[in-house]
């Protein structure tokens, strides 16, 4: 089983987001970078599939040279190789990103070892475009499913489960090759081991210059949402506050009688 897993380098935000002076990017001077959370799970899922049934995992990302750090992250937990679709650091829109990935997938097929499974994160943590996996699937005419929180492969079929509207689960069956976009919760990604980290430094990274074809949406600037002034009423300290809490719950009408 040949698996491609697409990942994205995003800043590890924690506290307040701070923008650069030109308001076109997040100020990352004090931030680390990480693989976007859903994609961390995608890598973990890919590695588990290969551990169980054989094959190999290729991690791909589109971004500047520094994004090799995230490719190494993926390889540290078990991806075998990596492809960097190297950019000059400009933010690529979802259409051209998808097109670049499609090119990479087709190149792999042309080389004789096509991917059986393309794994994505459901949406990137930063831009939240919700469309790259589907655009890739449509371009390659592959079956797809998003929001996946459980995945099983049997006899050339991917059985993918996701949360259904209104509770419960809905299950899809896709013939391989297929595109699957997973969500956090599908697994608990492992931490890289020390030997894994050291091995990752020695694994190969292919660099490919992708074709730029910007089409939008085109970001003009970023801004932070307005914070509404908020007054908090302290109901009390410790256990003594319980009666006041119940009173408030009654006022809100949430206490069952």
């Amino acid at each position, binding site marked *: 089983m040949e698996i491609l897993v697409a990942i994205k380098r995003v800043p590890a*935000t*924690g*506290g307040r987001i701070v923008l650069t002076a030109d308001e076109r990017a997040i100020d990352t001077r004090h931030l680390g970078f990480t693989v976007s*959370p859903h994609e961390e799970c995608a890598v973990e899922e890919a590695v588990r599939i290969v551990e169980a049934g054989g094959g190999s995992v290729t991690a791909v990302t589109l971004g500047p040279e520094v994004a090799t750090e995230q490719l190494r992250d993926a390889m540290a937990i078990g991806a075998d190789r990596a492809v960097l679709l190297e950019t000059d650091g400009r933010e690529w*829109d*979802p*259409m051209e990103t998808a097109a670049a990935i499609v090119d990479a997938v087709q190149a792999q097929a042309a080389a004789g070892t096509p991917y059986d499974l393309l794994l994505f994160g459901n949406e990137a*943590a*930063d*831009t*939240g475009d*919700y*469309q790259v996996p*589907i*655009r890739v*699937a*449509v*371009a390659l*005419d592959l*079956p797809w499913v998003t*929001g996946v*929180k459980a995945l099983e492969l049997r006899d050339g079929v991917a*059985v993918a489960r996701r949360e*259904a509207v*209104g509770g*419960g689960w*809905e*299950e*899809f069956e896709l013939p391989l090759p297929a595109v699957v976009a997973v*969500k*956090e*919760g599908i697994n608990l990604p492992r931490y890289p081991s020390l030997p894994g980290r050291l091995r990752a430094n020695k694994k190969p990274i292919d660099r490919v210059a992708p074709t730029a074809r910007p*089409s*939008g*949406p*085109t970001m*003009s*600037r*970023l*801004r*932070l*949402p307005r914070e509404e002034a*908020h007054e*908090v*009423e302290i*109901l*009390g*300290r*410790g*256990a003594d506050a*319980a009666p006041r*809490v*119940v009173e*408030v*719950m009654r006022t*809100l*009408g*949430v*206490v*069952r009688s």
Partner: protein
Amino acid sequence: MILAFVEHADGQLDRLSAESLALARRLGAAVKTGVEAVAIGGESLAAAVGRHGADVLHLAQLDDGDAYVPDAWAAAVGDRIGALGPEAVVAPGSVRGLEVLAVVAARLGLPLAANCIDVHPGDPWSVTRQRWAGSLLEEATLEGPVKLLSAAPHAFPADEMVAGATDARIEPFAPTIGERERRVRVARRLAPETGGVSLTDARVVVGGGRGVGSAEGFAMIEELAGLLGGAVGVSRAVTSAGWRPHTEQVGQTGARIAPDLYIACGISGAIQHIVGCKAAKTILAINTDPDAPIMAQADYAVIGDLREVVPAIAAALRRS
């Protein structure tokens, strides 16, 4: 014309679809054109869709009935785009809304702006959309003969009605759907594992964070949720520690909830969590730290150790 893709459940207009109709109406007013809706099945929607400002309801008649076959649904929407030539297509910020629109965009080779909170038609159109699950906003321009947009959840009112509106006129259509569009479909549905209240529907959610301290510590959180007929929600720290399943996670990579009351117990309030719970009508924070970030979001607070406060509240509830 502005075309709004709408969803429904049990014959009722879905809430997020109502919100996206509100966006569609604003766009219609701005470009001085009407709003029409497209849905897969759902004759009963005519009244609701009309009240929300759509003049026509285009009803796709699919062989699969109401079953969710995303590529087929997208083909249906694409069919109407071809037939009607709308200025823009608006989808709700739901899982299905987003993916159907994404397929449409991919098929037509058009850009798509997801999770918009503000849209200004012009040349080009300008949109304000959510990044980082709403912690950051992007102002962008959107090109293309048809503008494809989804409305960010809870960014537009769901209860905005047109005074004296009449039912939308139903116009059925039967798009051609090939076998390839039927490859992907819900093969089966599975009932929720527990009989409990679902996190996204619960009127009360009792949230637990790192401050709960352990997996065992969640017994008291569950008890309080049970007494209030609510659900348990947790922060990412809790699922990362393996204390609770990811299905209970509230936040950027978990569920977005909008209960009447959210009780945040031992949750400091990182932005990734706040984006998941800020739609709650009322937030009560229980925390030892009066300066924790969650306090900036809370309406009420109890300062203290949740391991004392939560059982005390539970006891008070049982007495009453």
